[in-house]
C-alpha cells in the first residue's frame, strides 16, 4: 500500500476508507479551501491558473521537486490511478448525487466538450449555484455513475481518484477523473516532467499470461492502444505482449481490451521492488 494508504487507510486503501468520506472532513482546515476552489466560481482560476504557472514553477526539467511540493501544499490536490473495481467501490462509498461535468483540461485547451469529471456530493450544490454557465453539467445517481465508469473503462479513459488535501485528519476524496496521457494535464505533468504528486501510480500492476495471450489476437492487439504509459510492449520473438512492472500504473485499461482474459491486475506489493515505486 502506498504511503497515503498506510497512514490514512486505517487498514485499507485511503480511497476505500470511509473516514475519508465523512461530511465534516470536507469542511475541515486543510481541505475546505480546495473543496471551495473546485466547487465554486473560482474553479477555473484555480485549475487553469495552476496549469498556466507550470513553466514558471519548473525552470529545470531535471528537478520537478519544487512543483511537486507546491501541488501538495499550495493547491492541496493530487490524484492516483485506480482500476475499475476500485472506482466502483469508491462510487459506493459516496453519497448521491454525483456531478458529471466537462474536463477543464480538454475544454479550456480547445477540445470539444467531453464530460469526464465526476465530482462528489460535497460540491454539487455549490457547483450548480455558483457556475450557472456550465449548462451541460449533469447530476447522476449512483447507478448512472457506475455505468459511466464502466463505459470509460471500455473506451480507454483512465480512472483517477483525486483528493482535497492531505492533513492529519485524513485525505478526503473529492472527484474521479477520466484522463488520457495526451490531453490530461496532471497525467502529462507526471509522465513528462516527473511531478510525482500530480498523478500517482495505482495500487496494482497488470500482468500478462503468455499462454492465454498466444491464443488471442493475430493482429495488432487493442491492449497496445490502451496503455497510456508505455508499459505494454510487444515481444516479436515470442509473439506475446509483455507488461513492464516498473512502468505499469495499474490502470487496468489493457485488461478491459483483452478478448482472451490474458491480463490480470495484481497487488503492487506482490513485486518487492515496487514498494517505493508510486
Amino acid at each position, binding site marked *: 500500500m502506498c504511503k497515503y494508504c498506510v497512514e490514512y487507510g486505517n487498514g485499507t486503501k485511503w480511497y476505500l476508507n470511509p473516514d475519508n468520506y465523512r461530511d465534516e472532513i470536507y469542511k475541515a482546515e486543510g481541505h475546505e479551501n480546495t473543496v471551495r476552489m473546485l466547487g465554486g466560481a473560482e474553479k477555473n482560476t484555480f485549475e*487553469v491558473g495552476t496549469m498556466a504557472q507550470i513553466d514558471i514553477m519548473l525552470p529545470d526539467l531535471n528537478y520537478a521537486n519544487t512543483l511537486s511540493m507546491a501541488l501538495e501544499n499550495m493547491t492541496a490536490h493530487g490524484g492516483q490511478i485506480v482500476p475499475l473495481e476500485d472506482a466502483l467501490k469508491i462510487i459506493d462509498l459516496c453519497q448521491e448525487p454525483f456531478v458529471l461535468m466537462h474536463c477543464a483540461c480538454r475544454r479550456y485547451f480547445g477540445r470539444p466538450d467531453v464530460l469526464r469529471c465526476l465530482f462528489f456530493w460535497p460540491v454539487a450544490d455549490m457547483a450548480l449555484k455558483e457556475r450557472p*454557465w456550465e449548462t451541460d453539467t449533469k447530476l447522476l445517481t449512483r447507478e448512472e455513475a457506475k455505468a459511466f465508469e464502466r463505459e470509460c473503462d471500455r473506451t480507454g479513459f483512465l480512472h483517477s481518484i483525486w483528493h482535497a488535501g492531505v492533513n492529519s485528519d485524513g485525505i478526503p476524496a473529492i472527484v474521479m477523473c477520466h484522463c488520457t496521457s495526451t490531453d490530461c494535464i496532471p497525467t502529462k505533468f507526471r509522465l513528462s516532467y516527473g511531478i510525482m504528486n500530480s498523478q500517482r501510480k495505482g495500487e496494482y500492476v497488470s500482468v500478462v499470461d503468455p499462454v492465454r495471450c498466444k491464443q488471442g489476437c493475430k493482429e495488432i492487439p487493442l491492449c497496445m492502444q490502451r496503455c497510456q504509459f508505455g508499459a505494454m510492449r510487444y515481444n516479436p520473438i515470442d509473439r506475446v505482449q509483455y507488461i513492464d512492472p516498473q512502468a505499469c500504473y495499474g490502470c487496468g485499461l489493457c485488461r478491459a481490451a483483452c478478448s482472451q482474459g490474458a491480463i490480470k491486475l495484481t497487488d503492487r506489493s506482490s513485486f518487492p521492488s515496487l514498494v517505493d515505486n508510486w
Partner: protein
Amino acid sequence: MEDYIYTTPRPVIYYDAESCGNAIQCLKCVQACLDTGHNLIGFMNTDSPPIGENAPGRLEDIHHMIIFSGMINCNGCKKCVDACPKKALTLEMPEQRSPSPKVQRADTVFCVINRDGSVTIPRD
C-alpha cells in the same frame, strides 16, 4: 564561487492582452496549437466570475485571456503567432547552444581536480 543555475531552455511567448481583447471571441491560437498536436495554448477567465444574481449565464459572457502551459514542448513552429488576427503573440526562441553536460560542481575543473589546483581524490 557562483552557483551555476541551470534552466531547461524553452521558447518564450509574449501575450498582449490589450491587443487580444476577449480571447473567447477568437481562440484561433488555441485551435492552431491544437492542430499541430502540441496543445500548449489554453484560455482562462480573466477574473473569477461573480456569484449570485450577477453570475454569467453562458461561458461566452465571461471575459477570457489566453494562457500557455508546458512551453517545454514547444518547438517554435509559430503557427499560433501566424493565426492571431490581432498580432497579440510574439514568440522568442532561446539561444542556440550545443549539448553540454550539466555543471554540478562549479568549483571542479575536471573529475577530481579543483580550480585552485587541489585534488579531491588522490590518484595514488
